[in-house]
């Protein structure tokens, strides 16, 4: 049960009720606002933020812009999205570097928010940009925090300044001061100070943090906050704002399934921008925060942009161009199919990717049942074939199939299913590559507007990507691969099947509004 899913699901449900109506009455709006309020509360948005938010939404929903609109429900979605983006900070801000290096960045936050890990990620990210960061171990409180920072620094390949062993000994203010001198001597242009975790109510430790701030006069003070935090986000954020007056916020543990509340609360209460998002335990799981994408995610319009970026990073362009050509010329073989699948796998968890797609809410349950090892099984089947068999699947007679099944530890039925689906996929991709709308054999009645939808989707991608035909074809192919699978009995074989198919399933309204957002 994903908290975040609840928010989007609930909004979607509410709007479904509104959809049929030509005009919104005051009672309709009140009902919707109540649902939004509840949904936001369940997503851990702080109560006072919820109150302000719903107040504004209500006011605007009752105004002229909605009653005059053709589709009021869509208008409300638009308003909610606008307001979300406004609160989350519109544009993402970047780190302000000092005119005279070193630039000093201080990290502060509750215990367990992820400061030390973030220090490593931030330093690696900066180092990749050509900076020479220095990590400073000013968390002398938690047992072995200093050691952890040293290990993290080593992994990130950056320098660390840790004159004190920690574990309750040493003065963090003094360490920070010494670090400044050290950085100047050694020509480090960025200094990142990792401070101890502290509670907002701990006056003594807050004073210590303020003293560190005074001592080093940082250019940025980043407040690290756990995306899972509840109503307490408000109290904590206020305490830290008063205590150390942070300049920016980092949202950590965004890879979990809670991501709505804290971001909204903190940004709204303190007026400070959320600058970065931390999305995993690896040192590379770190990205600048995109308020507009976050808002779209809350509205379940999907995180298309991130998805595209991931896809672009992973798909080998040259490779994709070749494959696209193969589709068009009908020389697509099981080998290519295998490669495609491996590329997909590289893109990371398919579940994660699907979560970024619009309309994914309806498939969450399916996603939970989706077994990624199906891909591995498919791989095994293909790898158990001879070269010749892979290029000309027609060769596959009964005894060959038995051999393959034995070789891959599967059954003949599974091999059969894979071959069937491969043939369908190849046929369909050929159509797609030539720019047509796939007619999927064996898929049964296609739900209304399906074809139109997928073509619409393609247009959108074109719009957002300034036309790279090869990549586009590859993405189409990836999508087509997924789309074919519903024909598979109980989603085996391709593996992508049952789960990926509903990705094409957002209603036309959702797509329209999505288009609007992407068009901006």
């Amino acid at each position: 049960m994903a908290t975040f899913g609840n928010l989007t699901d609930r909004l979607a449900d509410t709007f479904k009720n509104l959809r049929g109506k030509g005009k919104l009455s005051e009672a309709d709006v009140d009902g919707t606002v109540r649902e939004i309020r509840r949904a936001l509360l369940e997503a851990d948005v702080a109560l006072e933020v919820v109150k302000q938010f719903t107040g504004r939404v209500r006011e605007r929903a009752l105004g002229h812009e909605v009653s005059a609109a053709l589709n009021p429900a869509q208008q409300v979605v638009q308003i909610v999205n606008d307001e979300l983006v406004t609160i989350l900070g519109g544009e993402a801000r970047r780190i302000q570097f000092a005119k005279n290096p070193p630039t000093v960045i201080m990290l502060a936050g509750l215990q367990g928010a992820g400061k030390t890990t973030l220090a490593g990620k931030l330093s690696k990210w900066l180092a990749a940009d050509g900076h020479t960061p220095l990590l400073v171990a000013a968390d002398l409180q938690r047992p072995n925090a200093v050691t952890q920072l040293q290990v993290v620094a080593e992994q990130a390949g950056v320098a660390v300044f840790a004159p004190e062993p920690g574990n309750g000994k040493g003065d963090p203010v003094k360490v920070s001061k010494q670090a400044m001198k050290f950085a100047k001597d050694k020509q480090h242009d960025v200094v990142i100070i990792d401070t101890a975790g502290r509670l907002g109510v701990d006056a003594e430790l807050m004073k210590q943090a303020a003293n560190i701030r005074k001592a080093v006069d940082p250019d940025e003070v980043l407040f690290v906050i756990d995306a899972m935090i509840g109503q307490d986000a408000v109290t904590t954020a206020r305490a830290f704002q008063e205590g150390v007056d942070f300049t920016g916020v980092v949202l950590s543990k965004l890879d979990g399934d809670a991501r709505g509340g804290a971001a909204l609360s903190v940004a709204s209460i303190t007026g400070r921008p959320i600058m970065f998002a931390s999305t995993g335990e690896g040192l590379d799981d770190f990205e600048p925060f995109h308020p507009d994408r976050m808002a779209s995610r809350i509205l379940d319009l999907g995180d298309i942009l991130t998805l595209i970026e991931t896809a672009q990073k992973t798909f080998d362009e040259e490779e994709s161009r070749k494959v696209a050509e193969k589709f068009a010329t009908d020389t697509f073989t099981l080998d290519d199919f295998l490669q495609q699948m491996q590329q997909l796998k590289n893109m990371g968890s398919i579940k994660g990717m699907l979560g970024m797609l619009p309309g994914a809410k309806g498939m969450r349950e399916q996603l939970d049942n989706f077994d990624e090892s199906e891909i591995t099984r498919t791989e095994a089947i293909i790898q158990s074939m001879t070269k010749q068999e892979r290029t000309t699947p027609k060769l596959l007679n009964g005894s060959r199939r038995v051999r393959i099944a034995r070789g891959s530890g599967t059954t003949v039925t599974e091999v059969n299913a894979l071959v069937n689906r491969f043939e369908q996929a190849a046929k369909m991709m050929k159509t797609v590559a030539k720019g047509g709308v796939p007619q999927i054999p064996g898929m049964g009645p296609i739900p209304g507007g399906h074809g139109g939808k997928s073509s619409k989707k393609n247009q959108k991608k074109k719009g957002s990507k300034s036309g790279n035909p090869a990549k586009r074809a590859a993405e189409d192919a990836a999508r087509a691969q997924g789309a074919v699978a519903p024909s598979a009995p109980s989603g085996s074989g391709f593996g992508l099947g049952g789960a990926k198919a509903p990705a094409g399933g957002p209603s036309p309204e959702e797509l329209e509004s999505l288009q609007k957002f992407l068009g901006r």
Partner: protein
Amino acid sequence: MAASWSLSGALKSMFARDTIDADTWNDLEDAMISADFGPDITESVIDELRASVAKFRTDDPADLKRMLRETLEERLARLDPTLTLSARPAVVLVVGVNGVGKTTTIGKFTKFLVGHGRSVVVGAADTFRAAAVEQLATWAERGGASIVRPQQQGQDPASVAFQTVERAQRDGIDIAIIDTAGRLQTKSGLMDELGKIRRVVEKQTEIAEVLLVLDATTGQNGVAQAEAFIQHAGVTGLVITKLDGSAKGGFVLAVQERTGIPIKLVGQGEGINDLTGFTPHVYVQGLIG
């Protein structure tokens, strides 16, 4: 270290009124939501209170306050918070998401057990996070326990767990506590790893307790965390940490009711003695005043 916000503070204005009116209910709802009880529990508690108020025909806010306390206490006390550590060795597995205070809790728990004359061995099965083993070693030393370390960086946590239990059996140590790496409940691979640790240990002996550590500052996501960990690790008890902050952890009531797993321990500070058993009465007292 006085809490800057408390439910009692938020409720003060409400109880200062002469009679129970619409504002009273609104204030109560806001206060409960601010304490992270979540919309569902808040609604059901308020419905219950409304019924009681109607039944007893009272309009005195003092009565309402008493009823609120009784309701919450009763709900929290439905499950038995006692730890079962009678097996020898009693194996305790400690699980949770990242940064909730698993290692710190183990340190405090060790001290508590050693203080009661039990011998303890801790197993550093968090082989993933940088310096987690050293952090646990420091705590073990403070608490007076021995430690089983992984023989190499990134060793399979299940094998560390195995060795820990083995050591406890061989040396006749009363209690073996196993620290695991923090993992978000959405990472299926890591959750499976927990299942493996569990299976490996179960082959040696029964697991006495699987404690899920929850951070009091967590919001409604705590329920999702608990459900996932129950499914994969077979959690038998909850530990709430960081209750010394301004967060009141109201979501634990939702967790306890939704999952039927009792809260067993409460952590309220970074000192080694800041861990106590869970008593509904004390918890509610701290909440409402």
